[in-house]
């Protein structure tokens, strides 16, 4: 093992790991597309204390924040096929549950966990907007929907952006656990390439580099967007 690193393998596998990026990004984007609106709506139920939904979101957030994501994956991966096969049997639908692409499970797990994180992000962001803003908007004749769209959300978004960025980076990192669902993303692809020659050190260095590049780019992108959102905000030091 002490012959040092296998550099040709290191370079070749870097591109293998890179080929997993589209799947990682696809899962990330789908999870965000589900979680952003859903998280926002559930955050509104928390703020407005909507009876049943308020409690539901509290327990939901507490569960997701209280359990490791790998265990959430285990539970979804063990339960969804069970429920689906019962459902398919009952209605005589001829689909084999084990033929379902694992990416669907990934969508479920990561949307599920990201929604909970974003509920908290939006809740804290919305609570930073002064209540007078909504009242002022209503007093000049805007409807509730207009007030949220034009006055509240733009202000809350500026506050929420850094946290949404953190949530996105964490989501990208969490997709590395997709191996547990045999999702063909960065980690699994490089690991499979390493299996042949036991070049695990090289493979993990590649995976490590790909994640650093990916997350740095995402963070940079969010920073640019945050600047754009802030353009109306004056009187800042």
């Amino acid at each position, binding site marked *: 093992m002490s012959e040092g690193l296998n550099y040709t393998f290191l370079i070749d596998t870097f591109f293998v790991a890179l080929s997993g990026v589209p799947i990682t990004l696809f899962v990330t984007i789908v999870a965000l597309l589900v979680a952003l609106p859903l998280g926002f709506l559930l955050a509104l139920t928390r703020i407005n204390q909507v009876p049943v939904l308020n409690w539901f979101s509290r327990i939901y957030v507490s569960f997701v924040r*209280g359990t490791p994501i790998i*265990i959430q994956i*285990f539970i979804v991966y063990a339960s969804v096929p069970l429920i689906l096969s019962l459902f398919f049997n009952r209605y005589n639908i001829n689909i084999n549950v084990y033929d379902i692409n694992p990416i669907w499970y990934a969508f479920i797990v990561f949307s599920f966990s990201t929604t909970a994180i974003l509920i908290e992000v939006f809740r804290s962001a919305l609570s930073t907007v002064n209540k007078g803003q909504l009242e002022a908007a209503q007093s000049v004749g805007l409807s509730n929907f207009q007030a949220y769209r034009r006055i509240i959300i733009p202000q809350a978004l500026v506050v929420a952006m850094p946290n949404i960025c953190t949530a996105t*980076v964490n989501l990208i990192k969490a997709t590395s656990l997709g191996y547990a669902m045999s999702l063909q993303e960065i980690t699994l692809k490089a690991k499979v390439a390493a299996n042949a020659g036991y070049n695990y050190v090289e493979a993990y260095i590649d995976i490590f580099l790909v994640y650093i590049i990916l997350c740095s780019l995402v963070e940079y992108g969010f920073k640019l967007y945050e600047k754009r959102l802030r353009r109306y905000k004056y009187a800042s030091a």
Partner: protein
Amino acid sequence: MRNMEKYFDISYIWNSLPVLLPFLKVTFMVAGLSIVFGTFFGLILAVMKLGKSKIAQKTANFYTTILRCTPSIVLLFLVYYGVPALADNFGLYLHDLNTAVFVVITFTLQFAAIMSEVIRSAYESIEKGQFEAAVSVGLSPFQAYRRIIFPQALVVGLPNFGNGLIALLQEGSLAYTIGLIDIVGKANLIIAANYNTHALEIFIALAIVYWVLSILIEKFFGKLEKVFSKGKQTINTN
């Protein structure tokens, strides 16, 4: 419905809990060591970030950024395979080392990055005037830190420390991937012994254990914060 029972039997949840819980000891031991070492290195990193040296600042910030961008599982395997390979170059043979050591190294590295930010932000939240005032009434710089700065920074840092702890505990659940028999490792052994049936019940039992633990830690830090902030007077915003 009878069909369902064949696959899902709730008694497996209750029966597995007494088997699983003793293995929390391993989880706690690994987490505890990582917290001790991680806090220590985190303090060093925070001092580097707050110090005057530009190189030290850059190094510490670079470290934190890199660690923030690395998934725990990747870091875990990088340490698991990388440390013994690196040690080979120095003539050390570390391939037989207990897996717990690699787990502790990984989570120490990660917790240090979290703690450095917790400590830095807590320290920066205390006004400079506090230190100057303390020194002006005759306290030595060390006394000023110990009696004035530290108690105030502690209150600010506590909730973040609690969140870091919960994060560490959760990321620690990945230690089973390199063969550590902690609570998750034991759960997987139980499932294997059941010929991969009733996995769902065991995983639900695991989720319950982690959920309860996280809530307890959160409650504990909430209480602790109240105790330490007893001397603090702020505008009541509630």
